[in-house]
């Protein structure tokens, strides 16, 4: 009986050891708590690149789509023979340097959409602080290109924490405009919605939204996107940013609500 017990013990311990060893042999990735990024005036390109990589693979959530090869262009590896992003960014838009192009793609992602992909990228300047944005640009430039981001590119006194929006000396939303079309462009609504024939079809078409919802309902949906979900779009529930209420001024919100309510 002693022999049987020992054999059972060996089987149990051996099985546990095998699983533990395999799990320890694979790459170890720990999910860190995001830290607020603080860069000094003498920050070096290397420090920017290192900080940018952390944002890219962490709080930025960039790897959610970039790198899968299906939702968005690969950035760290070759994309259709053009090399990684650092090697191709200066050739994307005529007259725009790599740095300008990358900033534009983070600030106004729908301004230029790579052929074959949908305009689904959120406006990252609303989700990340300017320091994080410029660190990401430096990191992307380092992928096959030359890093020319410098401390002077980063606005002073802008220490908006990760995840926060607006505030902290940031420019007013849509330049303070109350023109609904300017607000729609700044908010990137057409990244997911179609309105008057423009935009993507990921979320419900807004061209006749006024016939489905009244002004109160539209306002509620903008302020609290999870309050309701149009039938047929349940799988995209949760995608719409919840930050519009804090980004827009009350005047801008009302201008947008009345504009959409009039779209019958």
């Amino acid at each position, binding site marked *: 009986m002693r022999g049987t017990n020992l054999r*059972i013990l060996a089987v149990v311990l051996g099985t*546990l050891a095998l*699983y533990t060893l395999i*799990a320890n042999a*694979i790459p170890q990735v720990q*999910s860190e708590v995001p830290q607020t990024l603080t860069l000094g005036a003498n920050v070096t390109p290397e420090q920017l690149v290192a900080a940018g990589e952390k944002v890219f693979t962490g709080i930025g959530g960039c790897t959610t789509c970039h790198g899968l*090869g299906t939702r968005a262009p690969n950035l*760290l*590896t070759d994309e259709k023979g053009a090399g990684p992003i650092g090697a191709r960014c200066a050739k994307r838009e005529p007259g725009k340097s790599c740095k300008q192009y990358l900033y534009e793609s983070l600030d106004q992602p729908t301004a230029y959409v790579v052929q074959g992909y949908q305009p689904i990228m959120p406006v990252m300047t609303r989700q990340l602080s300017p320091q994080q944005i410029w660190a990401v640009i430096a990191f992307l430039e380092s992928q096959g290109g030359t890093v020319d981001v410098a401390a002077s590119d980063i606005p002073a006194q802008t220490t908006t924490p990760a995840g926060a929006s607006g505030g902290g000396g940031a420019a007013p939303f849509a330049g303070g405009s109350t023109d609904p079309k300017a607000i729609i462009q700044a908010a990137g609504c057409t990244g997911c919605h179609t309105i008057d024939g423009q935009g993507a079809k990921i979320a419900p078409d807004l061209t006749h939204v006024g016939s489905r919802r009244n002004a109160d309902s539209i306002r509620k949906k903008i302020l609290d996107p999870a309050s309701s979900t149009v039938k047929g779009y349940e799988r995209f529930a949760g*995608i719409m940013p919840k930050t519009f209420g804090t980004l827009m001024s009350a005047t801008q919100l009302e201008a947008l609500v009345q504009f959409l309510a009039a779209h019958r």
Partner: protein
Amino acid sequence: MSDVALALQAAADSLPAYRDFPGIGARAAVWITAEVHLMFAAFVLGVPMFAVVTEAIGIFNKEERYDRLSKEFTRLLLVAYSATAIWGALLTMFLTTLYPRFWRYLAAIFGPSMWLYAGLFLFESFTLYLYYYGWDRWKHGRAKWGHWGLGILLNVWGTIVMFIANSWLTFMMSPPRDITPTTDPTTVKLWHVIANATWMPVNVHRLIANVVFGGAVVAAYASYRFLSAKTDEERAHYDWMGYVGNFIAMSALIVLPFAGYWLGREIYQYDQSMGITLMGGFMSWLWVIQAFLIAVLFLTGNYYLWLGMERIPGAERFRPYTKWLLAILVLGAIVWGTPHTMIADSKELAAMGGSHHPFLGALGVMSAKNTAVNLMILTTFLSFLLYRRANKRPVVPWARAGTLVQAAMFALAAAVVLFFGIRGYFVEAIVRIGFSVYQVLAVLTCIVSVTVIDVFMSRGAQSLGTIQWGKMPPRSQYALFVLAVTFTWLMGLMGFARSGIRQYWHVWQVMQDTSRYAATPALGYAAKMISACVLIFLVLIAFVFWLGGLAEKSTFVASAPKEGVHAGH
């Protein structure tokens, strides 16, 4: 507010957010107690489900051995219940002392359901005692039906208790979107938070998983009794019990991925970023480990069946097929374990030459993986079918036609699985996801219809000999231990996945974890924790079984006839 109330409020406000636990830290202390409690809870919830079913088989078929088996299952529960309660109390103590503010937040929302939980646990315990100790008293006639009703009631209490506990943990994962960090927890409607997005999928997933787990642990218990048996009769009994336990575990395991798929879908619908963290984010490597564990389960489960055929006269007819079944299982496991969407740094991406491996990347996509796992399920079912038919020769006039129809159904199901697997490479992701439903339906339809045909075809079948229960090589019993350890480890791993996708949040995007343990650990650390939990559980459950054996002899020893070698399955 009275002075006393003010004093209490002041005391509550001055609570520290966290305290530490000596040696292993607060997180590890809560992790171990929660996991071991959960393992015992899964066992005491899973076993009554099939105890009631086997008791019903005994009543309807008038087969005493099923009744004895059911009683033996229940006997294992008695001390395990106490262990569940002790670990539950430890968990509550650790939560209240190590995470006091978080506990206060949860209690403010779920207070009434916590009282109900405690009350129902008492009802459940008393029902169990009545069920077990009344077994011989209410053994015949109408009293037996009443006794069976107690078994049903035991399951009802247990299921409600589990649903209540699930509401707390699923709230942490998927709180309703109108609850924000500034929401006063005392103003939240209880049902609103209970019926959160992942509550019902987790309920269903756990119900099935508990049966799998209970079956595997019972099989391991039986295998130990088999290995230590002193007589052939005892060995035969525990061989049969091990077979039944393993059959229960493997049958429920086949359904489990579909419940898991539903849960995954709900997680994605609730919050895409959470879903992507789970499947393609920092947890992506976890699925490779899961694939390895599932491969071990399929291979070991089939190996046990193939060894079992050696004790069945007539089974030698099917032995030549074994190598082909093994080949399909191994190939399926390799495809299923192929990594695809992994978190990789720039050096790793450069080394691969892209985001996916140039050759293996094609095998790592869901089209290939779904195809592989569905074919593995079909293969396992075929193994079981061959086992079931091993000592029978059908005598119904349509036996040949029936067998041909069964073969055609297998071929058709495999063809449907392969067709949609290949077609999936040429359509968009949203269309491809829908294909998995057709694959699953094809496999389930095949399993159900082939089983129905087989049941009718085996009526009055000629026996090629009696199953020689007890004539199993010892390695078959060690295989049952490997299955039990693997099921338990898998449960710990998937628990880590479910809990870990909250990352640095106690309650997702509502209450942040600001403790020193807020970062979610890598798989290596998690694996050590899981192994420690499994070892603690196995040692304790062995002790519990031994303790139960001290108080009362096995139901087999007490009441089995001396010539009681089982003749069928």
